[in-house]
């Protein structure tokens, strides 16, 4: 309870500082909360940007597509590299090196390949989400205690049963952690992709407002996007907690 009050106090203090600083600065570049609130109301009532629901829906669908692809490819590649030691040893370092490259350097060529529409955003979100998922599966496979696999085999487990009853529970922590990181990065990838160049979606609206120096609208749009990002992370953490309870 005390933590909650302190948190609310902190939030109020931050807003107050923002209000004072916003009023003092150039109104084209910085806006105080008192100016953002009406902008947020206009936004949510669809007065300033009537295409908001369509944009939100588009961005959500892009995230969904990117994440689905990243999960499928990440699990597939991760298990393939993890189960076949030779393949894993050949590809593992390359994968880690590719992961270390700032992914945004690929975005111009993705736009050339996939155009300005949703496909290039999905591709970029996929690219960001794919690596942490693959690497988590790889790390997870290495965590499996071979002794437990032997025990299961001695008690009659075939390959499928070993996978389901020994490997999955052994690596669940790492796997779920990777899936969660992957989701966060997919969201970032799609939104950054939209901001860097697109005709629709939340990123395009943000770009529009910012480009026209409609700073209050811009901040309101960022707040809405923030809710989307935080919401997806809360959902992922709920799933993670559930998975943890399931293994314990």
């Amino acid at each position, binding site marked *: 309870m005390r933590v909650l009050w302190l948190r609310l106090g902190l939030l109020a203090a931050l807003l107050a500082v923002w209000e004072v600083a916003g009023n003092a600065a150039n109104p084209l570049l910085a806006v105080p909360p008192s100016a953002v609130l009406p902008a947020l109301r206009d936004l949510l009532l669809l007065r300033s940007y009537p295409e908001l629901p369509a944009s939100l829906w588009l961005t959500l669908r892009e995230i969904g597509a990117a994440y689905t692809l990243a999960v499928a490819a990440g699990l597939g590649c991760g298990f393939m590299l993890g189960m076949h030691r030779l393949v894993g040893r050949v590809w593992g370092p390359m994968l880690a090196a590719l992961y270390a490259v700032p992914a945004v350097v690929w975005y111009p060529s993705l736009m050339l390949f996939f155009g300005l529409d949703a496909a290039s955003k999905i591709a970029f979100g996929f690219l960001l989400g794919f690596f942490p998922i693959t690497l988590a599966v790889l790390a997870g496979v290495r965590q499996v205690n071979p002794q*437990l696999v032997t025990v299961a085999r001695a008690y009659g487990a075939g390959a499928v049963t070993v996978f389901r009853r020994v490997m999955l529970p052994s690596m669940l922590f790492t796997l779920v952690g990777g899936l969660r990181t992957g989701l966060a990065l997919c969201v970032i990838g799609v939104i950054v992709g939209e901001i860097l160049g697109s005709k629709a979606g939340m990123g395009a609206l943000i770009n529009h407002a910012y480009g026209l120096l409609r700073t209050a609208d811009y901040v309101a749009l960022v707040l809405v996007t923030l809710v989307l990002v935080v919401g997806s992370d809360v959902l992922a953490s709920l799933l993670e907690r559930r998975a943890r309870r399931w293994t314990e």
Partner: protein
Amino acid sequence: MTAARGELIAIEGVTKRYLTSSGPVEALHDVSLSVGEGDFCTLIGPSGCGKSTLLGMLGGLVAPDEGRLLVDGQPVTMPDPRRVATVFQDAGLFPWRTALENVEFGLALQGVPAARRRRTARELLGPLGLSGFAEKYPRELSGGMKQRVAIGRALAIDAKILLMDEPFGALDEQTRVLMGEWLLDIWRRTRKTVIFVTHSLHEALFLSTRVAVMTARPGRIKSMLELSMEYPRSMESAEMAALRAKLWSEIREESLRAMR
């Protein structure tokens, strides 16, 4: 007590080689052994003499290069939990399963309905001395308790043959002696056929109806000792002291060879 009521396990001319970075190593060479139903047969010998490999073959986890192994007259080609249950050296419990769920594991794999396997496992916990620990996870159990859960998991599937690979090897001396007494009690009640691998002379003499001494690598059966004393055995008798001296001199010779 030694009377074998017919042969249950036949190991016939088994040889096993492993490929290592420094060339092939022969782990077992032409090993033959016959074990009767109800026997408590102990394999003892220097480290690396292939005792665990032999056990792995009986469990169907390792294939021989030459020779064959028969259980109930049928060749062993893969793990068969209906006939053989294995207890491993480090308990090998699943950390995400409770003690009870670990005991149930083999039954779950065999598709036994949840209610029935739960009942079987609960009945086993009493004699295992784990009645109050059904819902505990392996990390909450002591070394001896973990090993008893592992033995419970093996007993639960009610196979005729129990393979035990140094089950008490990781325990301290006192716990080890007590676990030996406990195992003897369980064995005499369940009448399983046990193949037991150990480094401990005490365990071999206290528990076995037969002791097979193995040579240094490549492992062969060096000699066979039949023990006919009544259970529970007094470890201080003159007869036992003589047996102990005899067994030790044979193992000592092989252990010295293994060290060279």
